[in-house]
């Protein structure tokens, strides 16, 4: 193999993760294995967000020499399914280990049929190299399930490859002959043959930089759900290759406040023309909007029937529908804070309350009748503005258990329950 490829092999790592899971109505610990690639001499490791998440409590990295060192999470971005770790360099120095680091290649220059290799830890098999070709360098797919409930894939298209990608390959590099990282292997279709997907290096490079610097990526949100225009140009009396179809506008979002609605066509954003004829063209436009600063006014040139005019839309900070999670073990309830996106999707009045994500059988929550999916709005008639409200009530219950009143909502139906010691 090339010198570059050998160097890459010295930069690929296995990642062992121990993380906390809240879903059971209690704190539980789970272990999993993934892959990663060292991208700098100071021990920065790039991997998937679904390998190393914010729930990780212990991260161990196995270097090319098969020695294990510990690492810490530096940054996390579920929207692109990328995360960054830093190897404990003191430990590396103390134990006299060496590693090399990989370099990015240019994913925008890839062509279908180009030979690529995936390196990683499929099913725990450390340092496995598989070979294939780029099947499609610009794959679009809608991801409705996300990663562990977190939204993903809105802002980039994917590299599709037939190099074997199995569970455990996640976070490992997809490389060209010269060992340049052109993608981060991320997922495969279960039950399909050789349909693997990677995040292109063009996306990974930009996100890595932000994660190292800020620990996260701040994006803007306006609340437009685009649809491909495809053959609708005639209907909308548009010239070809022009305009972005708004399929839906999130209720209560900045776009809705500005008066935009489904069926409108965005011709330009801040004067820059947009073209959303095919689904593959939608993620870059979404990324363009997301890349605008938070809290600024965007000018959207919009065509509605015969009329074309500009709409001013204020960007707001993009947030996940998944809020902060916690387990209240004395009650046997694990919960997730209601986020702004969740409140909008479920037509809640505001973001107060928590969603029940786990109930432990036989514990007070279960005995009272609370079930998964209930939104707890009040505790002892006090509104739950933040998790702190519940934490305080739980601490009081722990110190002196006494009947506690919950007000919950499910499908707009309000119920009262008593948590009883």
């Amino acid at each position: 193999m090339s010198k570059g490829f050998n160097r890459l092999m010295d930069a690929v790592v296995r990642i062992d993760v121990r993380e906390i899971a809240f879903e059971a109505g209690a704190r539980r610990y789970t272990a999993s294995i993934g892959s990663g690639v060292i991208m700098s001499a100071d021990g920065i490791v790039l991997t998937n967000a679904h390998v190393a998440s914010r729930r990780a409590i212990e991260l161990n990295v196995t270097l090319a020499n098969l020695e294990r060192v510990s690492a810490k999470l530096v940054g996390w971005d579920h929207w692109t399914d990328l995360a960054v770790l830093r190897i404990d360099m003191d430990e590396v120095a103390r134990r006299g280990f060496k590693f090399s680091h990989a370099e990015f290649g240019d994913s925008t220059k890839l062509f279908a049929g180009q030979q690529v290799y995936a390196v990683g830890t499929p099913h725990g098999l450390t340092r496995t190299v598989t070979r294939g070709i780029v099947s499609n360098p610009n794959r679009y797919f809608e991801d409705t399930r996300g990663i562990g409930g977190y939204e993903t894939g809105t802002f980039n298209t994917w590299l599709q490859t037939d190099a074997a990608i199995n569970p455990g390959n996640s976070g490992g590099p997809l490389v060209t002959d010269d060992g340049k990282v052109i993608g981060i292997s991320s997922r495969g279709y279960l039950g399909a043959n050789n349909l693997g997907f990677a995040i292109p290096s063009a996306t990974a490079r930009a996100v890595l930089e932000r994660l190292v610097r800020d620990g996260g990526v701040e994006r803007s949100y306006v609340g437009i759900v685009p649809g491909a225009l495809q053959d609708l140009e005639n209907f909308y009396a548009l010239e070809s290759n022009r305009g972005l179809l708004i399929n839906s506008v999130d209720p209560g979002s900045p776009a809705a406040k500005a008066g935009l609605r489904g069926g409108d066509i965005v011709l330009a954003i801040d004067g820059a023309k947009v073209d959303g004829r095919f689904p593959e063209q939608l993620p870059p436009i979404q990324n363009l909007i997301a890349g605008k600063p938070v809290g600024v006014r965007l000018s959207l040139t919009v065509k509605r029937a015969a009329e074309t005019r500009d709409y001013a839309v204020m960007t707001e900070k993009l947030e996940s529908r998944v809020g902060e999670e916690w387990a209240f073990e004395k009650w046997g309830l694990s919960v997730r804070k209601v986020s702004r996106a969740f409140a909008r999707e479920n037509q809640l009045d505001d973001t107060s309350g928590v969603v029940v994500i786990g109930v432990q059988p036989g514990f007070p929550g279960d005995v009272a009748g609370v079930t998964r999916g209930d939104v707890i709005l009040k505790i002892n008639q006090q509104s739950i503005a933040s998790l702190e409200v519940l934490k305080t009530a739980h601490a009081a219950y722990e110190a002196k258990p006494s009947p506690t009143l919950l007000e919950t909502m499910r499908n707009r139906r309000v119920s009262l329950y008593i948590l009883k010691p």
Partner: protein
Amino acid sequence: MIRFSVLLRAACHLGWFALPLVLNAADLPTLWAERVKSVVAVEYVTETEVDRRPSTATGTVIDANGTIILPTGAIDPRTAMGQLKDFKIYLPGDAVGSKGEYLGQDAYTGWHFVRADAAVRGKLTPITAFAPKDAGREPALAEWVWGIGLRAKDEDFVPYIMQSHMALIQSLPQRTGIAQQDVAAPGLPVFNQDGTFVGLALASFGQSFLQFSRNNRGNPVLLVNVEESSAFTLAPEILPNLGRIPKHVSGRPLAWLGAYGLEPMDREVAKFLNLSAQSGAVVSEVLEGSPAEKAGLRNRDIVLSLDGKPLPQLKPDRVIVGYIEREIERRAPGDAVTLTVLRGTERVELKAVLGEEPKLIREAERKYFERIGVASREFVYGDAIERRVKAIESAGAIVHYVKPSSPAAIAGLRLEDWIKEIDGTEVKTFAAAVARLAEIEKDTVRPEFVMLVSRGGETAVLRVKLK
């Protein structure tokens, strides 16, 4: 005392299936022959856009005019009146059947009323002929009861006997008898040993079983017998309501309060709220423009009593919701009801004047467009509630049926989609939607049209290719 206990043991020894000695062996066939004339099978057809589905139900004759009541579950509540066709009445053992007329459903009892053709009325005996002399009497524990079942149509609805003993009487909230075994087909009467009418069978309650297979060691399953039932509403709850024959096939007038999402509370919650020996129900939402809103009821109020009568503690807890609903349905629009509610820590008394229930989905106008492959129906009040939009500001058309593989289906149109725009023009009324779709349906040259629909709070632009 001693003699009594000995006798009882002897009775047990004979087994539950032995008939009590008071009934002569000759009596039962006579009672049977008379009472079988009180039951019929009713067949009807549900006619949808593309098919005709026959259904059968069993019912009981209630008067000399050949009026028959069918249980609540005999007809799917989502079915529009206009879709119910070809009612036919079959006497037990009758292969031919005769014409029947659907009279509508009564909201309070839930019964569907059907009337038999004059020609067969003479062959029917109303159940009132067997009414008890003591109107309030309930069967005793372990009392022997019997009822009638009807075989299926291919066996000419031949009648057969079922018999059992009383196991339990519950308030659900109506007084409901539960026998040890199935005792009658749903909707058919139950009698005691002298042939007195003691109740009308309900839809069967489910029974829990474990299902074993080669791979599974005992999965819990719930089995519901749709042909026979062991539960029946007691006669004192039935007889006073036989006069509730709907004046109109829609079942109107329908009393309406507009307190949405009534939720029961368990005894722990009642205790926490210092409600002793009574129950309450939380009002999830007060509906826009409803009598409840006008009376000043608020979201999260807890209903404690109706007309000064505290809500009873019934089991299971959920029964209280049915109790309140029946209290409303029992009344007529224009009637007043006084509610006592708990609001925070304060007790508030409200007087509501019941209104007329807004148009129901089953009453909505409908129109089918064969070539496009869509049936749409009028947007009604319930649609606004479901979609959490203001009813006064909302109108238009809802997709009621999408024909498989039709242009509409291929475009991705789904059931319950709310049609907001057709070809870029806002749909303001159902009539406008129908006019627009009819025009498109007729136009054989047009290659496509575009719809904007709303579903689950999101919208989608759909292109329907017609050729």
